[in-house]
């Protein structure tokens, strides 16, 4: 129990970066800006940032592919047919 409490006490720090950043372009912009166009002026931090940005983008691409592969093909029909009797 103590482990559970400690592990989750710091809300924001224990979670990894949001995968969606790459999709919304937030990360892309950051990496370009920080990295700059010329390789000579690229700082280590900038490189790291760009790498991180690329990784996130790759993660995002594969995530989207996976979604496409599992998402019900006959979406329109499926959703229309999804009628339940009222429950409680």
């Amino acid at each position, binding site marked *: *129990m103590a482990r559970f409490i400690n592990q989750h006490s710091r809300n924001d720090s224990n979670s990894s970066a*949001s995968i969606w950043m790459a999709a919304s372009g937030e990360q892309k912009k950051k990496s370009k800006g920080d990295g700059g166009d010329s390789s000579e002026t690229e700082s280590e931090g900038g490189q790291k940032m760009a790498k991180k940005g690329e990784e996130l983008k790759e993660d995002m691409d594969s995530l989207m592919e996976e979604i496409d592969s599992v998402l019900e093909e006959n979406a329109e029909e499926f959703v229309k047919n999804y*009628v339940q009797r009222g429950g409680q």
Partner: protein
Amino acid sequence: MQKRIYGVETEYGIIFTPEGRKTLPVEKAIRFLFEKLITTEHFLNVFLENGARFYQDTGCHPEYATPECASPKQLIIHDKAGERILEDLQLYAEAKIREEGIPGKLSIFKNNTDFVGNSYGCHENYLVDRDVDFYYLAEQLIPFLVTRQIYTGAGKVFQTQDGVHYCVSQRAQHIYQKISGTTTNDRSIINTRDEPHADREKYRRLHVIVGDSNMSEYTNFIKVGTCSVVLQMIEDNYINKDFTLRNPVKAIKDITYDVTCKRKLRLDSGREYSPIEMQREYCEMAQKYIEQYPVSDEHKLAVKMWQYVLDCLDTDPNKLDRKIDWIIKRRLIESYIDRHGTSWSDPKVFMMDLQYHDIQRDRGLYYLLERNGAVDRLFTDEEVDQAKTEPPQDTRARMRGEFIKLAREHSIQYDLDWSNIRLGNLLNVRVICNNPFETNTEKVAELVRTIQKTNLRKTSLSKLVIQS
């Protein structure tokens, strides 16, 4: 009450989609789910080894009621275990239906609405002191329950005449009363059902039917954790402010359509609060309360998360895209729309809204995110797996679970409800346990010893126990 019993009942949506011409009505499909469960109890209504109850409820919904739990963490793990149990049964049923010559897909969703506006619920149960006046309790709790959807909502894509909207909650649109005794029409925020399954002199049951079913462990934990802290404050007469809303039923609907969570609500006193502001008032009281009163570490954690979540909702809700169901789902759909250059009215969007809740992990979009590390978890797979067969060790469920295991081992006839065990050929031996905190009554222990010692066959058992 520092020690409390918690329970959640989750109704699942179910549909069979045939691959060919031959189909199977849902009332037949659902029976295949129960086939795998070996029991001497009634078909379509059984207690499981982990102390939980699984049954077919009103409207042909499979329903899983967790065993009695002693903390929010235990409760959410058991709620998840229910999903996993149902997933196993779904796999079995789908294969079985195929064997019967009807190939197709059996889908089970942990959500609260269908396509045409029917709803099925997720009911939270809290054991409370009988001493507390119920209407005082309800009045204090309602403003909290109306506004908490901003961090407990599961999100919904909703079509109206003026386009497609994204709402915070699945359930909010189906609430028509503040307090009522019914659950299938005129649904209310709080239901008056008072079956404590315990000593009625001491306890009553608080039956909250306004909540959404949650996929996210974080959302689910904060939902139950914050509610029980608020309950404890009410029981201790700690809340000294009047948040009575002028029209709570209208407010609950207004909030669900306001994804900013900042539109003002009118109070009886004439003051106005946004849902975030209202929640902040409760949260600030809770922060002071936990400094002054004995409160469990889990509840302290819930209060901490509560504050964090409210801060994020105020400044940048997308920070919660790993934690809070309605925001996780919205981010997922927005990214999909962005990537495919489509719009909110795309049928795929409605499908994603539904498939997020598919409990089959190979198909469900929530689980796809979980697999990819895109959502925060609070518990491990091991903890959830264990809860599929192990009852909570500090409530009455432990006795029930042990009894079921032994009774099955020795092929003994039995029938159960929450506070009774009946057994023997004529089910004429009855053990009553009215205390949900009891973990081992002498009666059951004796019964178990007798079963273990004698390894009796069905025929002679009932007689023996009666004589002893």
